[in-house]
């Protein structure tokens, strides 16, 4: 057995499960039946969610998802089935159901399914980079930390209520296919989030931490990776300033956007737009398609020449980082936008084959053993300028503008053109300097115009890895975690809305 990742052991409570026997039983049944491809995926996902409010535990829930899936190609059609019975007979029954589904599907499949070639990986393991599995930390220790932090915030300045959330996931996957690839993997991720609420002259509002979710362990909260105390201490003051801030005057402004906000704009307007399954119409009935169609590959001017975007399933601590995807394809890094031009897509094996692309770049993922793998997002990141300025350097280039920090509301249309985002904090910029907070701000733009207005990106010292646990896609719905790295960046002449004015009606 070969380890391709950091030297950390697989969880013995997972490796004790009977997945190899079940895989043999299911794959042998599919082979005997004449399937041209069959894969078996066994997963255990452990979730723990903690919510605290005003210094007290509000809810603690543990959930474990355990089961397996068989996917076959038979007579050119997909068949998929899943189950939870941990016996060889159960695995054979699931394989037979998948084969029966493929038979039903044959009549509705006009293009036979093919898969791009991938080398065989013979029984390899991969474990993500973390120090302490948060699910191994005593519950009482975690509750004590969260209740102390939220309790300390109560009553400070305008703070009337404080909340804390902690989502933790351990994901184990075993994959085997008829071609001989066998992979076993383990990933850990954690998402802490703290928010304070209060009331001012214009009503209530909230202020939230901007620390991102990460592919790390409990050390993210208790180690030296981030100064949580300082970030929490700042929240009451920031909320007080926001509650007293003037409402923005709608119009066009230059924007300097911090990575804690820009990651989400990248996710929606680049990440989803460069998924080949969307560009080909696979999501047309649900999340939608993409303006970035394959005929424009190599020619579409996505943004200014300072725009360089990569797809990456290998970056340390990324939420979408894996050793191998759910089709047995090794993790890779590649260009999506180069010098402002669209040059690449995110792929799985069937889409690569259908479009004459030699190899998948490893973006197949299923969020549970009960779901079929689909093309999901890699860590899609905007690269910094090697000798770029810091955030203050970008702000100094703005005469009249707004500095945007932290994400909040987001929405984009079904072809990824028109979007609208808000944030946690908005600061007026006057003559190259910050000039106090604003409220009621949303920025609204069209994707290529927005990225075409990006005049400068910050240097590596401004680059941060943001992300989300809850990216939704497909039917039946699946949720995936993904990270997006980016520097601070400067955009010229962007449309700013006043959200209070947007809420007002007009008498006729």
């Amino acid at each position, binding site marked *: 057995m070969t380890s391709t990742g950091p030297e950390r052991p697989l969880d013995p409570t997972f490796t004790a499960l009977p997945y190899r026997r079940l895989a043999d039983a299911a794959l042998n049944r599919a082979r005997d039946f004449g399937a041209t491809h069959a894969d078996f995926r066994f997963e255990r996902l452990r979730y723990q969610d903690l919510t605290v409010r005003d210094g007290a535990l509000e809810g603690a*829930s543990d959930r474990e998802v355990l*089961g397996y899936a068989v996917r076959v190609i038979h007579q050119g059609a*997909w068949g998929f089935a*899943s189950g939870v019975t941990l016996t060889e007979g159960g695995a054979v029954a699931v394989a037979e159901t998948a084969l029966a589904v493929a038979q*039903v599907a044959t009549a509705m499949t*006009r293009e036979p399914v093919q898969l791009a070639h991938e080398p065989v990986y013979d029984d390899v393991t991969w474990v993500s980079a973390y120090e302490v599995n948060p699910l191994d930390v005593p519950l009482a220790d975690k509750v004590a930390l969260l209740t102390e932090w939220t309790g300390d915030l109560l009553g400070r300045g305008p703070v009337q209520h404080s909340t804390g959330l902690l989502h933790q996931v351990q994901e184990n996957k075993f994959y085997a296919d008829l071609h001989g690839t066998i992979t076993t993997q383990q990933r850990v991720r954690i998402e802490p989030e703290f928010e304070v609420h209060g009331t001012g002259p214009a009503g209530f509002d909230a202020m939230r931490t901007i620390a991102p979710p990460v592919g790390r362990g409990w050390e993210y909260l208790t180690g030296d990776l981030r100064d949580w105390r300082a970030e929490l201490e700042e929240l009451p003051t920031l909320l007080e300033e926001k509650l007293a801030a003037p409402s923005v005057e709608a119009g066009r402004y230059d924007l300097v956007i911090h990575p804690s906000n820009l990651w989400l704009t990248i996710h929606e307007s680049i990440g989803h737009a460069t998924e080949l399954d969307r560009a080909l119409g696979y999501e047309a009935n649900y999340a*939608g398609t993409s303006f970035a169609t394959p005929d424009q590959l190599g020619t579409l001017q996505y943004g200014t020449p300072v725009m360089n975007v990569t797809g990456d399933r290998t970056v340390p601590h990324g939420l979408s980082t894996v050793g191998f995807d759910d089709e047995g394809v090794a993790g890779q890094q590649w260009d999506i936008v180069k010098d402002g031009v669209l040059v690449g897509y995110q792929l799985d094996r069937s889409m690569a084959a259908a479009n004459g692309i030699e190899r998948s770049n490893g973006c197949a993922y299923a969020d549970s053993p009960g779901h*079929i793998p689909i093309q999901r997002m890699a860590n899609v990141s905007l690269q910094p300028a090697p000798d770029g300025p810091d955030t203050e350097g970008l702000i100094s280039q703005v005469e009249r503008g707004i500095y945007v920090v932290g994400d909040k509301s987001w929405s984009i249309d079904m072809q990824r053109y*028109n979007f609208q985002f808000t944030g946690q904090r908005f600061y007026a910029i006057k003559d190259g300097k910050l000039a106090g907070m604003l409220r009621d701000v949303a920025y609204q733009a069209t994707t290529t115009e927005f990225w075409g207005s990006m005049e400068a990106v910050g240097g590596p010292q401004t680059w941060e890895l943001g992300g989300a646990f809850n990216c939704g896609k497909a039917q039946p719905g699946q949720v995936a975690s993904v990270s997006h790295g980016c520097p601070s960046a400067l955009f010229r002449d962007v449309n700013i809305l006043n959200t209070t004015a947007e*809420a007002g009606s007009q008498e006729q």
Partner: protein
Amino acid sequence: MATLTPQTLVEQALAATRSDDAVVIVSDTTSANLRWANNTLTTNGVMHDVEVTVIAFQGARSASVSGNVSTLDQLEQLVSSADAAAAAATPASDAAELAGDRASADWDDAPEPTSIGVYDAFAPALGDAFGRAHSEGRILYGFVDHEVTTTYLGSSTGLRLRHVQPTGHYGCTGKDAALTQSAWVGGATRDFADVDAHALDAELARRLAWSQRSVDLPAGRYDTILPPTAVADLMIYAYWQSSARLAHDGQSVYSKPGGGTRIGERIAKESVRLHSDPAYAGLEAAPFVIAPSSSPASSVFDNGLAVEATDWIRDGRLSSLLQTRASAALTGAPATFAVDNLVLDVDGGAGTTEELVAAVERGLLLTCLWYIREVDPQTLLLTGLTRDGVYLVENGEITGAVNNFRFNESPISLLDRFAQASATELSFSREWGDYFSRTATPALRVPDFNMSSVSQAR
């Protein structure tokens, strides 16, 4: 080894717990789906899932642990984890007495499954529809899903409740060969006996024909007909945000400035009634609380209590909010538990969407809304987009297809501003229907719907 029955799982878990009390929820779910794009099937599947939730109670402390269970060893580990977690917990703010002895007459019955066979009639017709659409220059993209969940809820206090919930829905998007026009049809169903693939394709063909004339319109406020599906899109969000606890804490559109909730206050036209009823015909839902974990709008301590028909807005006044017994004590209002369906009725609402259209001199008819997100909780300002069919209405007739728009609107404001309503009918939210499919809503005519900007999406 014989498969464990849900009833056995419940009894064995209750026997194994070392806590003062326990609630055990077993959900047996089978589902079958087909998904297609570009006139061909893309993915499909049949899934079976058995999830057990053990909620352990030790005085005022509680903890919830869930997992997939197929062996007694797995069950014992789950119970042990729940007992340990409850011991480590702090007293819960929603602590209350557990519901007592009550049993369903069908408790001993086996789970009811679905299978790929639910599409025995639909699947061949869909294959035919692909061929017809291809030959007539249409491209079809869609999804059908059917699932049946049988829930068993047992407790150490004597509850033995069972509920069978079939849930199905369908949706199909049609585009012209040039991908410049788009239309959508969709709905909810309990068994797919009423879903005809040929009829779906025919309706898409009719709507795409409306798009032969294309009209570009700018952003602005328009006299707009929101069909029942779009009204469902907006009302579901208003319902999800109606936690009494959050309102009492001053964090939602249902909060009274200075403290407390707006219950009793007029927030909509007097003709408006927004309500839920687990027995509503065609939208039948669980008649008792099923709460695997606590949240601002639900409590594990309320498991098994009867869910009643509830008015959320009555005669235009905010009548109730989502209340646990704990938040009811906080707000001084009765406990009003969440119901898995939602109905909007307008007194005087009559006729169909088409009849509302017939009364419009110049305005817009939407198909559905998408990517709806909250911009401001204080006003419940939502943003989102139109998609798959915005039509120009002139002198009561549909005369062409219009570009898509981004909107910024509050559903609460709309309920106070609409000019006319159709009769309420079973509907299906385009955005939230995969998760909340049991709705009945009218079409609404809004004289000044805020189209904030133009979207190029087609």
